[in-house]
């Protein structure tokens, strides 16, 4: 049977071998994305969400190393691929957009130089043709007067425009998969709305699969088809967006939703998750969340099994919440 998923990640493990010990930044993560659909990968800092994204494109630096699992891109295992093969895919069929556009763009080269280089790295076309395509891509992401702006340097753009340039570079080759790591976090509300709306249309029109990595549940609630929540290197809950937001099963997901200020009555204290994210070097046994969890019981020291609700909703918890009883944290 042909796999209709553009990307299928199976039991991915990326560990960091530091002097202080082994940090299991990604510890058995599995998910899949179909063409034209959006998966939101949500987690707090240190949860392993960015390392997951970097693992897919093969950009994990030492002391980090992928130690297990498979990353199937149209059935081809990227972990086993040679560096040359990865270079051929990266920026061509798989694109990445990072939080800080200044990390992507070279500050001393004109936008044109950088975009033409990106085109010619993967396709044997003339410079004039490459320039035309670059111009096209800039137009698609809503940059006014693209042919003039091609001659500009990155510092001549505002933050929102720079991020658009990065998105344009990602779109140059109509990639089948885009990995976006917090691309709107540094942007203002009105600019974020512009970028979100453009990404929505672009993915729908081109059938691009999108992995959107963020700490902000509200952003993916309006964008993603399904949401996966990561905590301490593991996906603790994964399901369709509606179910995840309306009836989360994992106490951590519930806590994240309750922490969003707009959910509480103004002026009332927010329902907060006590404590802080644990250090990956000294995770508690069993469920990593149990020390902050109000529903934790003695059994939580054992590794929780994956529970399934319906076909698409999975949760890693011994005592999942029951939406029938209101879903509140007991």
């Amino acid at each position, binding site marked *: 049977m042909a796999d209709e998923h553009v990307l299928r990640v199976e039991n991915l493990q990326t560990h960091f071998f530091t002097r202080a010990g082994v940090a299991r930044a990604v510890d058995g993560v599995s998910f899949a994305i179909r063409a034209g659909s959006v998966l939101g990968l949500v987690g*707090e*800092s240190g949860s392993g969400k960015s390392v997951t994204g970097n693992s897919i494109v093969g950009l994990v630096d030492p002391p980090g190393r992928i130690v297990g699992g498979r990353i199937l891109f149209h059935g081809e295992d990227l972990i086993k691929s040679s560096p040359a093969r990865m270079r051929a895919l990266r920026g061509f069929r798989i694109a990445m957009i990072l939080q800080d556009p200044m990390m992507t763009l070279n500050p001393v080269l004109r936008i044109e130089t950088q975009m033409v280089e990106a085109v010619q790295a993967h396709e044997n076309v003339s410079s004039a043709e490459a320039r035309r395509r670059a111009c096209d891509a800039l137009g698609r992401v809503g940059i006014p007067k693209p042919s003039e702006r091609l001659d500009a340097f990155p510092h001549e753009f*505002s*933050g*929102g*425009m720079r991020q658009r340039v990065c998105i344009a570079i990602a779109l140059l080759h109509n990639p089948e998969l885009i990995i976006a790591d917090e691309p709107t976090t540094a942007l*203002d*509300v*009105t*600019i*974020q*709305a*512009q970028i*979100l*709306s453009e990404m*929505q249309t672009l993915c729908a029109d081109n059938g691009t699969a999108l992995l959107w990595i963020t*700490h*902000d*549940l*509200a*952003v993916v*609630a*309006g*964008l993603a088809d399904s949401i996966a929540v990561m905590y301490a290197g593991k996906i603790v809950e994964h399901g369709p*967006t*509606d179910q995840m*937001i309306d009836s989360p099963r994992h106490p951590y997901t519930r*806590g*994240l*939703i*309750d*922490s*969003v*200020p*707009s*959910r*509480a009555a*103004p*002026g009332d*204290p*927010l*329902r*907060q*998750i*006590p404590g*802080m*994210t644990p250090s990956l070097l000294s995770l508690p046994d069993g469920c990593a969340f149990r020390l902050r969890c109000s529903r934790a019981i003695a059994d939580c020291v054992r590794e929780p099994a994956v529970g399934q609700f319906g076909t698409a909703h999975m949760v890693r918890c011994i005592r999942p919440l029951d939406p029938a009883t209101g879903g509140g944290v007991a």
Partner: protein
Amino acid sequence: MKARQGAAIVEARGVSKRFAKTTDIAGKAARYIFGTHTADQGVQALDRVDLSVNEGELLGLVGESGCGKSTFGRIVAGILPPSEGAIMYRGRDMTELDRSEAKKAKLAIQMIFQDAFSSLNPRMRVGEIVGEAAAYHQIVQREVLDDYVVQLFRRVGLDPADKDRYPHQFSGGQRQRIGIARALAVKPEFLVCDEAVSALDVSIQAQILNLFLKLREEFQLTYLFISHDLGVVRHLSDRVAIMYLGRIVETAATDQLFVSPHHPYTQALIEQVPRLDARRQAFAPLKGELPSPLDPPTGCHFHPRCPLAIERCKREVPPFRKVAQGHWSACIRDG
């Protein structure tokens, strides 16, 4: 929410701030030799801002980056002087207070910054950081300083046993608590919080917001809470002011502002906030970007992006008018 309406504790009257590049020696020489006159290139960060914060109130100040909200916070906190206009503290101009009164007023207004790490001295132990100002200003006697610091640590949810550690040994949320304890140490009446929770994770952000609300009750604090995050501001504030490119465009009680926003910019902001309850949200974004404050548009600063703009908007600066009880807005089309 309880109505808390005291007299104005801090009031900005026509506050403007211009950051100008001073002509360097080469420029002066050029002017002397060639008689060329280079126009001062300056940024008008604030343009005649009137805003008052009443005693006991929590005023949220919202705007996008570059709109001047942080500059305003710094001027209110006395870190920057205004180019024009005045900051009144309890009805008196801050610059006309005598030395001891001015010192009292400055201590009464404290600031909490976004980046707690760069506002904490990395070489000092956090206990010293928190206690230093209180000791210097003789708010507590040296003998009881230790107890005082321990108390403050407890108040903000830090473990007093950690007071001999250094800032780098703390997480982001804890560092923000240290910054809050340091501000509280001089017994302020008024806190200016500049994006105080923006750099924190959602779950930690909720903890710090709860701490602000708790401290407000305990110490009868008044807040100017500056943020780009409408959700946070809606949750905390009694009243909200919206700023765009150096001008206040709307102020109203929080409920009123969110239920019936008046200014087209406020309306756009509220519509575009990603919400948990919006699925497959169709973002209908505002066109364009925040214009450069180096070269602000004529008339109403918002007119190039405004869906409702008319010809007059290009020429006239809209007056700040009362549109309902306690609700003010600066849009020509209201007239």
